[in-house]
């Protein structure tokens, strides 16, 4: 990533979506977009891959169900054999409910913690807020000016066709923040 980016502000999700699509089709690199709510279709317009967090969820769920089944089997039929109403020690059907709950618990917590980890969200984080209205009613698009042939004036003109409210140039600081 170069040290210069172009920042476009929009008021409507349709404009942001169309502009993102057009910018990417023209071969420019999109750093990120910032929106007040999840804009459906933006991931396609930005060319992002579907999230792989589903695998984390699946893995955690499997660990939960298999771990709990093993523990139930080990504790009730190996470590301390407990006769309950003459039922077999290793009675699998009665192990299902708790194993299911363990799967849901681990899968739920696992995927949330994975989300926080990959998105680097943690208590006390001070993110750079480029425009405080981004959590209210503004949509931002950040375009990389890496390309040697990046024609700022042309891109600016293109963005204005999509009703960009403002287009400004910013410099990226080493930490990733904008100035």
């Amino acid at each position: 990533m170069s040290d210069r980016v172009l920042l476009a502000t929009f008021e409507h999700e349709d404009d942001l979506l169309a502009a993102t699509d057009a910018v990417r089709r023209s071969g420019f690199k999109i750093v990120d977009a910032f929106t007040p709510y999840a804009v459906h279709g933006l991931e396609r317009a930005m060319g992002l891959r579907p999230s792989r967090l589903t695998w984390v969820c699946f893995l955690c769920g499997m660990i939960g169900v298999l771990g709990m089944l093993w523990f139930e089997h080990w504790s009730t039929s190996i470590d301390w054999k407990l006769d309950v109403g003459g039922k077999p020690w290793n009675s699998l059907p009665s192990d299902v409910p708790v194993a299911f709950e363990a799967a849901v618990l681990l899968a739920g917590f696992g995927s949330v913690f994975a989300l926080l980890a990959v998105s680097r969200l943690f208590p006390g984080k001070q993110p750079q807020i480029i425009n405080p209205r981004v959590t209210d009613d503004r949509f931002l698009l950040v375009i990389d000016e890496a390309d040697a042939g990046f024609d700022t004036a042309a891109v600016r003109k293109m963005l204005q066709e999509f009703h960009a409210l403002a287009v400004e140039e910013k410099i990226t600081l080493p930490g990733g923040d904008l100035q």
Partner: protein
Amino acid sequence: MSDVHASLRSPLVTGDKTISDVTRDICAPMDRKPTALWWSAFGLSLTALIVGVAAVWYQIATGIGTWGLNKTVGWAFDITNFVFWVGIGHAGTLISAVLFLFRQKWRTAVNRSAEAMTLFAVMCAGIFPLIHMGRPWLAFWMMPYPNTRGPLWVNFKSPLLWDVFAISTYLAISAVFWYVGLLPDLATIRDRSEPGWRKRITSILCLGWNGSARTWLRYETVYLLLAGLATPLVFSVHTIVSMDFATAVIPGWHTTIFPPYFVAGAIFSGLAMVLTLMIIARKVMQLEDYITMTHIDRMCKLMMSMGCIVGLAYGTEFFMAFYSGNGYEQFVFKNRALGPFAWAYWTMVSCNVLIPQLLWSRKLRSTLPVVFVIVILVNVGMWFERFVIIVTSLHRDFLPSSWASYAPTSIEIATFVGSFGLFFTCFLIFCRIAPVIAIAEIKGAAHLKKRPPAESITEEKAA
């Protein structure tokens, strides 16, 4: 394209709002000082909570002999209240998770408060079995941890233990689902607050949310996963609650219809509680443009259909008692409808099956006072359903010599009142400190007003 959709369906948000109007309207109650109405409701709830705390203190110090239980009726008021509160929680998850999977966008107006309701209801529910243990300070014995008693592990074949895992998982997952849903809204509050304690607290709680599209993509994935996990979870929870009864050999309990019957009843009672809270909240917090009559109408329809399923289950129970040819089973059901607790049975049938039929009429569905009375009656009826299932099945058992009756003591009633106190105290505090409507979700779901670009550009330049 969005304009085309908007004209086909009635709008989710009325009153011609822009996106920033939505933020302002939903955050407004938090900026205002609490009204006199809020203070009086809070005072009342807090008083009920204090009464409950005193009652719980007394019965733990003295023992559960302070209850009206006897050798025949070993479960009564406390387990009734437990099932009642767990059931209420289920509508919250139905609205937040099941309707999310079905892409019902109208849920965005009510899901936040319904989830909060779930959390508080499950908290209230958890208290009852905890007290019922008699020695609640030993509650940790229910967890399978290595101990010096053998180690003697917990009994994984008991539905009561399944319940411990189900309810605690449900509470934990509901809390996480609620908090994850709150993250973008906490960031909204952070960004619109003046520097001060509110900005500091929300910037810690929102975990540094900045609205990045990459984060949104992952967030939506996880939200979908949580909804997918919460949906079978909510069914498993009440299924397991019903197995507390169904695995016993007591006539009236020992039936295979219990899991679906309990789940339908739970959602039914929960929708009644959601409607009760929403009808009050939209009025008191001036959210009529967000929780519209369309929302009330849809929830009424959903509630009525659940009521019909519950009615069908009541009928099926009677048919199966007759069809089984089992004399004990037949006696229990005759005794339910005609015995000493017939008044409770017929209260249940009238409130849960007959009265909700009024909601077939569109006119009555759009008359708020009528809807309010109906939902209150459904709340009452669903409490009586659990009372009927538990007490009438137990009080006349196999041996007529051990037949007994049951009446709650003042301590039991005070504990029940206290649980309402806890529920409403928590809910009223929630209404003050958090956005009662999911701001980010409703913005994405509702087709809001668009201003002409020229107007916005002028405004942006002036800023």
